[in-house]
């Protein structure tokens, strides 16, 4: 014992064994070296379960309610990723499951408008119209350039310029395609093939989109 021999007349431990209810000379219980059991043995058995008819009825009510809720449209189903091949039973599955949007089930006078699944159409109109104008201008410019090229003699330098322009245009197109994909993700119907892993990088984009979207 570390405390032994320290001071005079004081007890060697802060609490003497007698205080804990052990008589002098009685052996102390061995030290516990293992963590307690995960499922400790029950010293006292629980009371037996008394199943009355009332409780059975309550259980039926509970079960019925849970089952109904699970099967009702309140259970929001995840987007089904299409399996490898089309199966015959899929056609019937489509008939059974209700594919209609949740929009019709709610009275939108009493729900926040931003939850309404209609953002997409408005956004398309607002976002894409300036893009198209830009594209038209590009075409006109290109035609003019082409005219110039026809008139003037082809030189190596010009060819290089042309190549650069082409690559730029391709980039533009790619950007546009990506945006369209994003739009599609917002839509419910067309997103089977997409894998919904979001690493959070695209968060800022979506944030912007949302700010643009709803017009109150």
């Amino acid at each position, binding site marked *: 014992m570390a405390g032994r021999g320290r001071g005079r007349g*004081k*007890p060697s431990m*802060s*609490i003497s064994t007698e*205080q*804990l*209810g*052990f008589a002098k000379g009685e052996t102390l219980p061995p030290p516990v070296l293992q963590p307690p059991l995960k499922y400790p043995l029950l*010293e*006292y058995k*629980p*009371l037996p*379960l008394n*199943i009355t008819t*009332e*409780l*059975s*009825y*309550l*259980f039926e*009510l*509970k*079960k019925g*309610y*849970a089952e*109904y*809720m*699970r099967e*009702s449209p*309140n*259970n*929001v*189903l*995840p*987007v089904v990723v299409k399996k490898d091949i089309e199966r015959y039973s899929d056609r019937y599955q489509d008939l059974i499951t209700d594919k209609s949007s*949740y929009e019709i*089930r*709610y*009275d939108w*006078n*009493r*729900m*926040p408008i*931003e*939850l*309404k*699944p209609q953002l997409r159409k408005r956004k398309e109109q607002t976002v894409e119209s300036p893009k198209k104008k830009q594209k038209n201008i590009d075409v006109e410019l290109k035609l003019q350039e082409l005219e110039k090229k026809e008139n003037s003699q082809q030189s190596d330098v010009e060819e290089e310029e042309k190549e650069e322009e082409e690559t730029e245009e391709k980039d533009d197109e790619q950007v546009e395609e990506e945006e369209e994909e994003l739009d599609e*993700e*917002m*839509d*419910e119907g067309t*997103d089977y093939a997409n894998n*919904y*892993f*979001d690493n*959070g990088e695209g*968060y800022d984009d*979506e*944030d912007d989109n*949302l700010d643009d979207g709803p017009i109150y």
Partner: protein
Amino acid sequence: MSVICRKLCSSILSEHFGQIVQRVAEDLFKHDARPLELICCTTHLPLTKIKEALCVLIKHGFVVYGQTERGLEYSLIHQNILLILRYPKYMFFVKTMCGDESEMILEEVLMSGYITASEVITKTYKKIEQSPSGLQPSVPVLKEKFELLVKNQFLTRSLCTDTVEEKTNEKPDFTLPDFNLAAVIKKIEGDNNSDPGDSKIYWKVNFDRLIQDLRDQIIVSAISRRLDENAGELMRQLLFLMYLRTASWAHTSNPIPLTEIKEAVKKINYPLLAHHLDQYLHLIEEDSSQFLKRVGESGGHFCVNMKEAFEQLAWATLENIVTERFGSKAARIFRLVRDKKYIEQEQIQQLAMIPAKEAKHLTYTLLQENYLQIQEIKKSGVSAAPIKTFFLFHIDLNLVVYMEVQHCYQALYNIMQRREYEISSNKRMIDKQLRMQTLTTNLKEHGATEEQLAEIADLMTPSEKQQLEKVQNTIKKLGITELQIDDTLFLLTMYLRYH
């Protein structure tokens, strides 16, 4: 709130609404109020699905939204999720009060969160039509039952309010709807164009009222178990009189004059009670549970003391828990500490008449499990050596009740997990039985022979049948245990509400 409460809520939601709703709600639980974009950011779910899930949660009253400077924010009310555990009890209560049709109407309202009167009547009508119970559906009767529910305040108007602040101020509105009965009948017959004229008037379940009713049930049954049926009935009448003159969650009722009690008792058919009214009142008043208090100098007035009643009930519950967990000797110590308020170890073993070593062991076990608390009192001016300090044991009731509430959450969560496990590990068999059932009912409709039906019944081997029965029994037992734990939980939360 605690982690286990969150886990319980999310397991309740996943049982009823599926994974997506659960994940959205759990996110809201973790982060309090937050706008749509942030939910989208942390849950990694597609935006449309989050919106859909929020719609479901709002409709069922689990989520409220409010306009803040950061935009529209959503927040979760987890207490309402825990109410789902008690839905069957509400339905059963309404069944005993207002009959089978009312129960079905209430169930429909619970299923949709809020709903218009005409719609709920249409749905219930169709349900009764399909059910084999032998009830005859009739629209006027259903309307009557609906009005009865509203009159009893079990249903209330669900008003369209946008912000959280307004919601707390709103007064329950029980004005009856006025809708075209003929149009409802037409709609049931398949005419989709008829308009019952209440398209914007929604109804929801008034949980506050139902909670009070279950609370009263506890009080009445406690008295009838302690004394007898007559006393229970007297208590019911007293509570009824209490409603007439007191705000709904007041700690004590305003004084009820004896003459009114006499009149109320005369109206009901309990001759023995009417004859011995004074004695019964005296018994309830003298009882250690102290549900009733005589007030005034003349002694002609009585007060129902709800706060005290639930304190007594909570004590009784805790004593039972200690008895079941640590045995009767530990319960004796627990009661002793309760009785003496502050008590030393020496005194415990003397007064409880338990051998010193055992008494110490039990006391320390109770201390370790937080059923007892310890208070140190040091002699002033003496060194801090433990031998010079008094250790007084006492019970902090609020603390212990709160801990027990957490235990209830934990137990409920564990049971739900176990039930899920039983279901998922026997899914194949349960599905098979379901398929067989649908097949037999289909064949019966088409007039199949006995042989064919027997053939289908043979699809399941005897051992499978045995196993299935065992699983279903286990699931039922677990479900019933859940209901019983919820009883305890309800009582304890009622205590916390009053204290």
